[in-house]
């Protein structure tokens, strides 16, 4: 039977956790490697299908599995379902790092002696999210051609697999996922909102455990591939839900638990500056993406697609200006104003690091709403592609000739609005909690609320107008 308990959160509110690993069947399914490997192999098969059909199939984006299954089906599933409700669970079966990881380990299942990689530590200077932030922005700049051109999608995915292999053979564990993957930082940030977590049951047990097999590895499993000591886990940001600690802990002290959404977001805990910056870059990117992909300007879309042209250079400069300068600058101004208004002695850096996590709900809502809008517009491309996956004229499901039909209509627009407003409400509540924690009160919260309203207004303008 699952254990339900009511611990007290850092903010003092009561919350309920349900330990799924107390269910014997669930635990045995998670500890056994077979089920996870089966899903991983299915994901690898999907990746290979996508790369092969991206390279060989039709160059028409709306008819090729590479673009349709990745950027419509997978992206929507990730942003609307996987990340908000399961956090980093996708990272546990993501096919991109698997070839590298298998080569590094020299095994697909349990450890088999020493692996094949050099196992060097990731350079200290490149730790943190800065490289990942840069990788995300670079991929984002080229995203429109990648979204629409199957070959580019296939090359991007194949390239990421090759980079992951190279990194895995040189550096230790999953350095690629932790420090490089353009999507990894994104998923990690918003996984904090998810109602699922991997945590130790009692940190004192870990402290007394001398061999720390969850980090060093054992015959039953690998030391944490994400380079995290589970006993110190306080957020989902860096936990890849790979389940290794569940396998290596001899003391049954690791649990996978359901929890209230957003439990990682604690008003009293500042995040690192790179994590704060990630939060701001992502919220700015959501805004730009929504305007470009769902907005009314076809000229803007054309500029974003024409990589290398003068109009694209203007678009790229605008994208960087909004995501790297304008949004972070406005947020910095808002937090500074809040500090002044509340007459609190707090550094600009500290202000950013304290308030940035409050944007996670709004950012997640923005991405989920944008992704929902995008998938509702384009969902009808999925069935024709499944019916003729390589674009050879097959009609496996009888849906090859199904016409493009956007679904949802006005109702969809209001659903997007509701999601964004829910995100705003959640963020606003958290902003208030942070301001209270800093004894700044409403005066301190006001400018940050203003920033959130501004971002929300921008999103609503796109979704409704």
């Amino acid at each position: 039977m699952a254990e339900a308990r009511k611990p007290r959160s850092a903010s003092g509110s009561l919350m309920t956790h349900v330990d799924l690993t107390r269910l014997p069947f669930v635990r045995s399914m998670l500890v056994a490697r077979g089920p996870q490997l089966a899903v991983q192999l299915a994901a690898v098969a999907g990746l290979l299908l996508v790369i092969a059909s991206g390279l060989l199939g039709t160059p028409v984006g709306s008819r090729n599995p590479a673009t349709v299954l990745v950027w419509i089906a997978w992206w929507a599933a990730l942003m609307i379902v996987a990340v908000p409700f399961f956090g980093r669970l996708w990272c546990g079966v993501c096919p991109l790092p698997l070839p590298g990881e298998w080569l590094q380990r020299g095994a697909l299942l349990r450890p088999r002696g020493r692996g094949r990689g050099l196992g060097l530590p990731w350079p200290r200077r490149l730790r943190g999210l800065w490289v990942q932030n840069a990788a995300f922005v670079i991929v984002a700049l080229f995203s429109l051609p990648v979204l629409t051109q199957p070959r580019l999608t296939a090359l991007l995915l194949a390239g990421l697999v090759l980079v992951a292999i190279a990194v895995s053979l040189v550096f230790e564990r999953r350095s690629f996922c932790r420090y490089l993957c353009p999507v990894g930082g994104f998923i990690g940030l918003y996984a904090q909102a998810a109602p699922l977590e991997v945590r130790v049951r009692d940190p004192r047990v870990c402290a007394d455990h001398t061999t720390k097999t969850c980090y060093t590895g054992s015959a039953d499993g690998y030391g944490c591939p994400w380079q995290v000591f589970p006993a110190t886990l306080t957020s989902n940001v860096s936990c890849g839900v790979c389940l290794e600690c569940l396998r290596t802990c001899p003391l049954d002290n690791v649990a996978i638990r359901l929890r209230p959404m957003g439990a990682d977001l604690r008003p009293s805990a500042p995040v690192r500056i790179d994590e704060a910056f990630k939060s701001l870059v992502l919220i700015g990117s959501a805004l730009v993406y929504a305007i470009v992909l769902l907005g009314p300007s076809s000229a803007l879309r054309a500029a974003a697609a024409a990589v290398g042209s003068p109009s694209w250079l203007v678009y790229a400069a605008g994208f960087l200006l909004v995501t790297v300068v304008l949004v972070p600058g406005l947020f910095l101004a808002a937090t500074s104003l809040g500090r002044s208004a509340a007459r609190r002695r707090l550094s600009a850096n500290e202000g950013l690091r304290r308030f940035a996590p409050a944007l996670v709900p709004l950012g997640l809502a923005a991405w989920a709403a944008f992704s929902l809008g995008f998938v509702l517009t384009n969902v009808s491309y999925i069935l024709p592609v499944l019916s003729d996956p390589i674009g050879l004229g097959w009609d496996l499901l009888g849906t090859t000739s199904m016409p493009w039909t956007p679904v949802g209509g006005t109702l969809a627009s209001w659903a997007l609005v509701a999601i964004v407003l829910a995100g705003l409400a959640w963020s606003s509540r958290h902003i208030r909690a942070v301001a209270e924690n800093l004894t700044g009160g409403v005066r301190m919260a006001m400018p940050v609320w203003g920033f959130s309203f501004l971002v929300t207004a921008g999103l609503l303008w796109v979704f409704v107008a």
Partner: protein
Amino acid sequence: MGLRRLSSEHLARIALALVALVVPLAVSVAWWGANRSTLAVTIHGRVSEAGGWLPDTLAASVGSPLQLRLVSDDVVHGFAVGRSDADPLDLPPGQVVETTLTFDQPGTYTFYCTRWCGPNHWRMRGVIVVSGGSPAVAEVVDPLYESLGIDIDALHPASAIPRVRPSAERGESLGVEFPEGFRSRSDFIARPPAETWQSLRLDSSTRGLSDSQVWDLVAYQWRSTTTDGALQEGQSLFAQNCAACHGESGGGDGAIADAISAAAPTHLAGNEPPSPADFTDPSTMLGASSALLQGKILRGGMGTGMPYWGPILTDAQLWSLADYLWTFQFGETS
């Protein structure tokens, strides 16, 4: 050796090997089978700037079915074979459309795009060289404009233009009998309307008629030498093939007229950009004969961007189209 002696790691590796081999292999074999099949030829359609039809030259034999798998790689294209009465096929992007062609005569057939896919849409053409069988012994006939000695590249200003838009109905109601040399269809198509007007104006049969009434007679001459069916066919062909440049109302202001001017070859720099002909302008239109118009359609306008339609349209269609163009001068305005 039984499965029991294989470790789970070995089984996992076998499963991975199967996935890693089977998926790419299956995709490659399917792709190769479809594109290298000897049973059917796959033709990819792309806008002219990206290559047009690939391949654009096909070979076939008389009487042998030619199976085609047509697929557009970018926008909606259409596929049709010139001088045939088969309906054109629409090619939605990325979707394979299959068709089978059988030729009963040897020769070179033109296939072409029937959808306005871009400024150079008309260049999206290819040929099917059909061999075998007994060549049809066809009488070689020069185009009419050549036998009449018309220089279709020369300017053709009208020597006279009407003050009021001529009306065939009014012309018919005058009850005037056309003099000899103005009654037959060949009389109409060989001579520009402005010349016809001048000749009729001097003829005794039009004594007592105003200049405008004589123009009405010219309009009636056109209408009495064509048919409703020909005009309907001409209208349909015009909408399908000509309106994008020349405009639905014939004013030379079609949706892609500007794009054509912008895409003018650089060797024309310094010259006036080739703009589509304005069929509503009497000062040029009434100086052209039907034979000249039909010749322009047949051969195209050298260096002007006007496509040649000779391999595409049948003789009857060419003349229907030429007949229809006069509606922009003589047709009833709504």
